[in-house]
């Protein structure tokens, strides 16, 4: 039996990187006595995979990891036991059974991510947020009318110029924040700060490599439904 855990990451936990979050959850499984399954062989390890890494500095309401269970456990019990051993800044919000099929793992099906981007008074404090300027708000639809948006994108090996426009599914802004809906996952992935960089350039704002201070908050991760091509939240992909 496989299960998908949804969790929030907020507050000071934004300083904990992805690898350490993985280590953190391995220890959570033991402390919460979740009956997680192990791989065989002489150094067995937990069967656990994360849908999509979250960069240091970002907060999120929609993080996911899949685990394999060696015996069934109820949704309520699992959530309660895990939250009893959490630290402030981490909270399990859902636990759903998923298909055993490898093709339905969070890592495989993740296709999009939504974000809120906040503009800050200064980079010192991500809670000190200021309004999104009217001009920015009005520019969003025009920005999306661009046919192509070429940006330098860093990969592990090299840096190349790519058209990021097809990877931006939506962008709109209100007074509070800019909403982004972007391609995500192991196939095509677009980071929100690259979009903001492109957007500022588009508006002719000269930021000399030093961006205005933003805080990025991930709202959720999505899979693409086969038939309708609609995006559905990873928390709605259970069996």
């Amino acid at each position, binding site marked *: 039996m496989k299960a998908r855990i949804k969790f929030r990451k907020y*507050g*000071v*936990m934004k*300083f*904990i*990187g992805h690898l*350490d979050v993985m*280590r*953190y959850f*391995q*220890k*959570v*499984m*033991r*402390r919460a*006595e979740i009956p997680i399954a*192990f791989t065989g062989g*002489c*150094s*067995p*390890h*937990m069967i656990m995979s994360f849908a999509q890494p979250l960069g*240091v*500095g970002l907060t999120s309401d929609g993080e996911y990891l899949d685990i394999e269970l060696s015996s069934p456990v109820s949704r309520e019990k699992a959530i309660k036991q895990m939250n009893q*051993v959490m*630290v*402030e*800044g981490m909270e399990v919000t859902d636990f759903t059974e998923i298909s055993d099929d490898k093709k339905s793992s969070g890592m495989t099906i993740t296709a999009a991510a939504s974000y809120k981007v906040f503009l800050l008074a*200064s*980079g*010192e*404090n*991500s809670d000190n947020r200021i309004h999104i300027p009217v001009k920015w708000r009005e520019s969003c639809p025009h920005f999306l009318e661009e046919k192509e948006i070429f940006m330098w994108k860093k990969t592990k090996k090299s840096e190349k110029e790519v058209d990021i426009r097809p990877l931006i599914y939506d962008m709109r802004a209100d007074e509070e924040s800019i909403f982004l809906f972007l391609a995500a996952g192991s196939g095509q992935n677009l980071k929100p700060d690259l979009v903001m960089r492109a957007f500022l350039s588009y508006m002719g704002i000269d930021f000399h490599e030093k961006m205005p*201070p933003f805080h990025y908050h991930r709202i959720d991760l999505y899979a693409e439904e086969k038939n309708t091509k609609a995006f559905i939240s990873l928390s709605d992909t259970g069996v």
Partner: protein
Amino acid sequence: MRKLALNDEILLNIEKPARYIGNEVNSVMKDPEKVDIRFAMCFPDVYEIGMSHLGIQILYDMFNRRQDVWCERVYSPWIDLDKVMREKQIPLFALESQDPIKEFDFLGITIQYEMCYTNILQILDLSGIPIMAADRSENDPIVIGGGPCTYNPEPLADYFDLFYIGEGETVYGELLDAFKLCRKQGGSRRDYLEMAAGIEGIYVPSFYEVSYHEDGTIEDFYPVNPHAAETIKKQLVLDVSNTYYPEAPVVPFIKVTQDRVVLEIQRGCIRGCRFCQAGMLYRPLRERNVKMLKHYASQMLKNTGHEEISLSSLSSSDYSSLKELVTFLIEEFKGKGINISLPSLRIDAFSLDVMEKVQDVRKSSLTFAPEAGSQRMRDVINKGLTEDEILAGAGEAFEGGWNKVKLYFMLGLPYETKEDRRAVAELADKVARRYYEIPKEQRNGKCQITSSTSFFIPKPFTPFQWARMYTNEEYISYAADVKHAFQEQLNKKSLKYHWHDAEVTVLEGIFARGDRRSGAVILEAYRLGCIYDSWSDYFDYEKWLQAFKNTGIDMAFYNLRERSLDERLPWDFIDIGVSKEFLKREWERAKKAEITPNCKRKCAGCGAGKWKGGICIESKN
């Protein structure tokens, strides 16, 4: 929501911000309004090293069990943050509350090795606490030193208000109660130090003075305050099975050096190796009850979620219930994906059998510490290990499928000759030969015998405390002797040789046996920019040489002379139980390469029996 001392901009632009945010699982939060005493516990090195230290975990748990005390942690900010804090004048803070250290009642610093001394000054400096104890005001925290280096606290005497000599479990309660009483009575800092000086095991350096002979040796060391005792008695726990031990140690977010549950199975050691300071300081041997250890192993694994448990002690093979404990751990936890890591055990049938169960034989290597190459030298240091035993152990391991062996040695030992040094390579070659005695079709390719040498540093309270050390150049020539000998060995292609740096050795030697005057060099080196001296990337020997030059302190006086048996040594005022008479006897026996049997075989009358605990009072077979 949790508030941090450092802002986002700083934290997102330094390495591993998780070092500074606290909030770890099992870290203790309290309401500062509801406690009487704020205690900051410090390990003066980077977080990953400091968090791996068992002693602090024990004391952190012990202090926080008291409702009136909030004990928090603080470590050395790494080089990157150190720079930012100085530029922006951000005071050093504790991880839990994120409050400035300067606002605390106590700053307790554990002093585990000499090369962290400049980091101690960094901690004081970044906290805004005057570096010199004499300059501190009523509002500054009381700065306490503890740990193995405090058995010769003199080089640090000017920087600490008091030292706690010995194991922390015994008189900290008294020390804290005295603080509350003193405050209630409206007492001053000096009043408190006088009260503290009256507690067994507490040394207040400012209450003592030292006079010197013309040749620079100590003439006299004496108290100048009526509350200060002539000798300071080391503190030790007699019943180690009924004492403080954490059931829920703090679990770091980032990977630290000791990223596992640590179970201390015993304290002290029966072996009596003459170079080993821990072996003398922590006498007598005291074993923890196996029932207690099983309980703590289960609790700690459950409360931390760690995937590994490691046993800790000196000479673990001597623990009498080792088999029962290890069997329990394997049966109980191996199936739950928990790794069991064993400390260096004597290589015998039992330990090989256990290792086969808990490790991947093909990947792992076996470690032997013969410490010296020749049998004569092993007798000089009282290692109590013969060449036959080494070769038999290696042989068993090779037949069990291992083909990698690590050997540890020391160079620069008392009475060592060039022949003894060459014997290091010869012993390594004999181990390799033993491997190739196995028929080709039964062995697993080539063997790899890796030998490492470090340079011996005489430590206080050991039989070698009177021994001389050597110069940097001499040490390098000793390593060269060994290297040349390796090139002549039959199996040289299967042998590897590494040696440790000599510059650090020289400095460690000076501070290990330094007196009060030597402390000035530490401050001068710190002023010249020395910090993180135990990290080879940051160690700057040239700056240290400059500091010696600037302070006029002579390295040769501390390192290059053999001390006479009647010389007053800087640490003579501390009573560790083991008597100076015993150490002298052992120094004489070393000269004649005579071995002394271990405590289980025959009591050598070392003096530790006066504590009336552990092996000294247990019935001897």
